[in-house]
């Protein structure tokens, strides 16, 4: 038996949505990370909650990309595909390359199973034209065999078959099972008999590979080059990192975190996560609708909380009126939009960047609002933290854009030390202002008004959705005052300091790739690949969208060719053109609901270089 060392490997677990593929994938990524690999994962859930068993719409996938060095995406194609049934094989085969090894549970490839997956012959491999190495393992029966003396019922036994597949994969990649066993013991701490059964099956899968050499000639290792910074790490997805960012900002600012929200895919996990943390004083209100989620957050902001509302694109449509109230009343508010496919209900579980212009301009009147777009699961933490800092210190609503891809995808994340994060200082009124203070008295440097919290004696005041006099705070329809207030609100946002955009890649690049938000991993991987091949390409990836970094114009004008790559029809390119007059930008646009594919990016950028 040969053992080959690989730089990186992508494994895709797939099966019925009840087959436990997410758990198997999670365990594999965590034990790989524990062994020192870098990791990136992406779950691919079906839209149906529990589609009929064995059908094409019920297939759930979980892709894990592990590497000895830095891993930036969950991988384009998989090296190993686990297909627990014919439906999984049929729908997931497109993620295979000709070299991919496919592992199937032959017990689930009976005639009825094939029919459910709409196969017309009794040879699904031939029917799909599959020429790959296929490991045919009777996973269900081996699982039953391993647990025949466990005393568990048949249903519970079959629930363990994901662990057989995991054991087999662990054998293929020479992974130590101890860490996986520990995770199972912890996960099923309250049901030790289930933990034991899962561990038995995990070992059975490993041994099965070992004993029969699973009809493959080689097993693999992915060593750790350990280029990562020393420290403690955890596996985190974007929604959890975003939630943690809000919690950290609340602690740093000394404010209570208030979330007003309404369940919506793919943002709901933020509501789930935050509602757990009452011991940190977090208050979550599951409102009657999206409007109330945002409106109640505006009320909470008025009362002195760090107010957040979380949603996805369709929810933002409903929230925009209340967001505008925060604009004119100049109250701090963070609006999280975990973008999904649109328009309308669109593709709820899929990822896009199509809400950028909505975030920037989707409200009535002149309504300037800072926009931040997180670039990776881990970066969701920093972006959420900074969105809160901006909102509170500049007394403005802020839009935080993430997307389904980084929200559900996960990566290794170094535990942050809050002491190293910037302070968040709410611009509270001070006692000496009493008597002279009016609601729109502004800090000269930031242009932000001072915050007088209800309950503070001497500062009772009324604000609201009608235009107010900058001087007195009373309702005003004076033409000059409205003109002034419009400009002051704009200037306040324009003055927010943001870091320069960094250019990564070849210094003498002939092509600059420009992106924003959740596409960073794919764009950076494409640029890295091209740099390795000697191509002169660089990447400028934007997190701060409004205001734009000060060096934006300089960067865009510096390179002979620029291409803006985004998962929409060119919204960021359009925005950049409006901010940097006359700049010529090429565009690469895909709106498929799926992450970019690195190879396709490389091809497109190479063609542009040559053109």
């Amino acid at each position: 038996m040969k053992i080959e060392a690989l730089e990186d490997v992508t494994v895709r677990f797939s099966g019925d949505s009840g087959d436990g593929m997410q758990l198997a994938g999670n365990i594999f990524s965590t034990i790989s990370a524990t062994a020192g690999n870098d990791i990136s994962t992406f779950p691919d859930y079906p839209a149906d909650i529990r589609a009929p068993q064995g059908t094409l719409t019920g297939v759930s996938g979980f892709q894990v990309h592990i590497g000895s060095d830095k891993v930036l995406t969950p991988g384009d194609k998989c090296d190993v595909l686990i297909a627990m049934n014919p439906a999984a094989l049929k729908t997931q085969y497109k993620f295979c390359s000709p070299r991919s090894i496919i592992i199937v549970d032959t017990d689930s490839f009976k005639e009825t199973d094939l029919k459910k997956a709409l196969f017309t012959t009794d040879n699904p491999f031939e029917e799909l034209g599959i020429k790959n190495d296929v490991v045919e393992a009777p996973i269900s029966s081996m699982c039953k065999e391993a647990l025949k003396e466990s005393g568990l019922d048949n249903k519970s036994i079959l629930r363990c078959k994901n662990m057989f597949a995991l054991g087999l994969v662990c054998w293929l990649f020479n992974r130590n099972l101890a860490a996986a066993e520990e995770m199972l013991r912890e996960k099923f701490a309250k049901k030790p008999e289930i933990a034991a059964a899962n561990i038995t099956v995990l070992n059975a899968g490993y041994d099965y590979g070992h004993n029969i050499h699973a009809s493959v000639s080689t097993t693999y290792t992915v060593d750790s080059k350990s280029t990562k910074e020393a420290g403690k790490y955890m596996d985190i997805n974007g929604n959890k990192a975003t939630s943690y960012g809000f919690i950290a900002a609340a602690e740093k600012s000394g404010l209570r975190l208030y979330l007003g929200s309404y369940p919506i895919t793919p943002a709901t996990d933020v509501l789930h996560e935050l509602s757990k943390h009452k011991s940190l004083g977090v208050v979550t209100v599951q409102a009657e609708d999206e409007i109330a989620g945002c409106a109640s957050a505006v009320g909470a902001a008025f009362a002195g909380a760090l107010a957040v509302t979380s949603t996805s694109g369709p929810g933002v449509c409903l929230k925009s009126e209340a967001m505008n109230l925060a604009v004119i009343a100049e109250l701090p508010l963070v609006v999280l939009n975990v973008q999904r496919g649109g328009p309308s209900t669109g593709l709820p579980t899929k990822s896009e960047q199509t809400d950028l212009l909505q975030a920037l301009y989707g409200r009535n009147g002149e309504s300037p609002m800072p926009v931040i777009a997180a670039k990776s699961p881990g970066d969701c933490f920093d972006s959420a933290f900074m969105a809160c800092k901006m909102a509170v210190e500049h007394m403005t609503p802020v839009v935080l854009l993430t997307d389904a891809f980084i929200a559900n995808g996960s990566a290794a994340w170094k535990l942050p030390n809050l002491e190293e994060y910037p302070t968040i200082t709410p611009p509270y009124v001070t006692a000496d202002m009493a008597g002279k203070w009016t609601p729109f008295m502004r800090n000269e440097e930031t242009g932000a008004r001072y915050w007088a919290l209800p309950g503070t004696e001497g500062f009772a005041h009324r604000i609201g959705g009608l235009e107010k006099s900058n001087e007195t705070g009373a309702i005003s329809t004076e033409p000059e005052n409205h003109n002034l207030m419009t400009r002051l609100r704009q200037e306040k946002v324009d003055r927010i300091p943001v870091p320069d955009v960094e250019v990564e890649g070849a210094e003498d690049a002939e092509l600059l790739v420009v992106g924003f938000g959740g596409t960073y991993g794919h764009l950076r991987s494409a640029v890295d690949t091209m740099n390795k091949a000697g191509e002169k390409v660089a990447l400028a990836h934007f997190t701060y969208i409004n205001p734009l970094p000060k060096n934006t114009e300089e960067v865009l004008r510096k390179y002979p060719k620029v291409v803006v790559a985004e998962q929409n029809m060119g919204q960021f390119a359009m925005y950049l053109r409006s901010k940097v007059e006359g700049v010529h930008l090429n565009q690469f646009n895909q709106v498929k609901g799926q992450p970019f594919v690195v190879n396709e990016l490389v091809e497109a950028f190479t063609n542009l270089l040559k053109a």
Partner: protein
Amino acid sequence: MSEYTAKDYKAGQPRWCPGCGDHALLNSLHKAMATLGVPPHEIAVISGIGCSSRLPYYMNTYGMHTIHGRAAAIATGVKVANPNLTVWQISGDGDGLAIGGNHFIHALRRNIDLNMILLNNRIYGLTKGQYSPTSARGFVSKSSPYGTVEDPFRPAELCFGARGRFFARCVAVDLKGSEDVLVKAARHKGASVVEVLQNCVIFNNGTHDSLATAELRSKNAIYLEHGKPMIFGENGELGLVQEGFGLKVVKIGENGITEKDILVHDAHCQDNTLQLKLALMEGPDFPVALGVIRDVDAPTYNDAVYAQVEEVTSKKNYHNFAELLETNETWEIK
């Protein structure tokens, strides 16, 4: 005794039409606040959009004049974020029951400790005269020149349907009656609704004419008080009794009816069946019920939220962000 007077709660110069019922209600609210004695800076008055929603500008308290229909939702956020504040929510019939109907019922269902004033003039005033969700079927307005073809909401019914625990009614021009129910609404712990019957002199003049004076109210209304018999009429000669599934107006002294036969009001009764019947009475056969119709204790949302925060805090072993991080499965790279 309160150390405050009505003046301490006054701000600005009201800009409503002369003769508008809002003026009267505002005065009653100032007086009620003085009676209650909550310091002005510990009060937040939240309104939506409409004529009556201008009210916060005339209160020397914290206040927010927000967006159409959302007052209850915004007030919810204020109260939950800072439960130490006394929160009043002001809406009209359009703001509260049409565009804001959803927030109205859910604030009641959750039992947020809000004092919700619903000014009902059965018309859209600020947009100059369209029918509202409380306008009677057939009502002729600018947007219903041939009469409406829809039935109105009866606010009490909606409130009771949303499990409302406090419902009172007053007539704006009846200053004493208004102040009385506003004070009681504020003292009630939980969401309390006060329906204020209010005239719009411009677009729906006379809509509550049958209740406009003390004399008319003695004939056409009944002031309900917990524990007191339901007697009304110019000389207290009429009363209410239960008959079958319904209520009936009787004359005391006729057909052997004595005061003992008259129903005694029970605002604290958990079962709202009779209270609803009282709330839905209307002329000419029945008097309109004024005063506190329902006043039942129940746990408030805001109290429950913080009780849960306290309980979970005592049970969980992490109380700051650094400790939260440690609850995760981690690995170390050296």
